[in-house]
């Protein structure tokens, strides 16, 4: 008697579980679609343009104790050349004897050409409202906007660049911190997400291309334009890693790895993100 009663009960549970699974999958895809619609609706009026305009003004204005403008700053294609420069960064700069990404190079120009101290140049790396605006974010918005549509072409011909790429790759898969996380824990498989936010699979070419070519981006939830340095910094925070120092070799190595993995795609930033 007891045996007979159990069967229908088990069947009911199975049906219920099946129903929940379908419902969950449906809710997830429709939320993803809705976020995509939301992004498309915002695309037209991307406030990143406000940062681009401010950055363009900052680029030509004399700065620092030596009153030198960024028009003397060499981003790799010659002093003051911005068009297409971001699509080839990071790169090795012989004058600094270092591989640099865009933000680090801007700081280098502020220190070595304009005469600012390292502390002053890196005081406001990430902005916070109108009280604490970041010139670096505005300059990055302007410079990257001048590469929109340019094919990503980060060269690994230079041995310094190859070393940085190899280091970045190693870091990407290196597990550590209190949660035993690696970048690849979240970005190494398809279909991973944080809450409703889909995470790109950066081990695949399409994933790396789509992610890298849409930074910097205006983050609607923060009302700020954020650079790739910020993105990495926040990934480290989310992993409970020690704070990623702005412009450190660690940050540049990861940037070099991801930028080179995006080669071949058209750069499409500054974008807009939730």
């Amino acid at each position, binding site marked *: 008697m007891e045996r007979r009663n159990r069967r229908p009960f088990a069947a009911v549970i199975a049906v219920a579980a099946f129903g929940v699974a379908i419902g969950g999958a449906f809710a997830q895809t429709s939320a993803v679609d809705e976020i995509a619609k939301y992004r498309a609706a915002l695309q*037209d009026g991307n*406030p990143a343009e406000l940062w681009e305009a401010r950055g363009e003004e900052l680029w030509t204005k004399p700065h620092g104790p030596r009153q030198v403008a960024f028009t003397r700053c060499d981003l790799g294609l010659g002093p003051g050349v911005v068009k297409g420069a971001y699509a080839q960064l990071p790169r090795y700069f012989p004058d600094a004897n270092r591989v640099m990404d865009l933000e680090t190079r801007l700081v280098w120009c502020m220190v070595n050409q304009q005469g600012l101290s390292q502390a002053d140049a890196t005081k406001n790396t990430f902005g916070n*409202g109108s009280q604490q605006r970041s010139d670096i974010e505005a300059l990055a918005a302007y410079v990257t906007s001048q590469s929109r549509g340019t094919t990503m072409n980060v060269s690994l011909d230079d041995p310094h660049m190859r070393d940085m790429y190899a280091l970045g790759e190693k870091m990407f898969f290196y597990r550590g911190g209190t949660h035993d996380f690696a970048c690849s824990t979240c970005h190494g498989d398809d279909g991973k997400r944080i809450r409703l936010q889909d995470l790109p699979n950066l081990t695949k070419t399409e994933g790396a291309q789509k992610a890298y070519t849409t930074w910097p981006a205006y983050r609607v939830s923060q009302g700020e334009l954020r650079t790739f340095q910020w993105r990495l910094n926040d990934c480290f925070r989310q992993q409970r890693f020690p704070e990623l120092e702005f412009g450190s070799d660690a940050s540049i190595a990861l940037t070099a790895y991801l930028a080179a993995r995006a080669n071949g795609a058209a750069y499409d930033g500054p974008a807009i993100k939730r």
Partner: protein
Amino acid sequence: MADPMKIRANVIGDSTEVKVLMNHEMETGQRKDAQGTTIPAWFIQNVKVTHNDKVVLAAQWGPAVAKNPFLSFKFKGGAKGDKVKITWVDNHNDTRTDEVAIA
């Protein structure tokens, strides 16, 4: 002084489409800072758009409009080269006016 707006105005058929990005904090007055003190409300209250000195849009805004607002609208008429002028006034009585020629 407030930062400039970004304005685009294009003739589409028999009307003109205007798209504006404004630079503004748009504080609601509901938020608190790290110390727990309320951040005072600070938002755009009035927006006026004129086409060759004729008002084509007048709006009263409140604190529910997002930071760095984007405004898009159409009005009948308008020809290439005509001037479209946009003015906003916020609750601090700060104001900004920008002008663009219709493309």
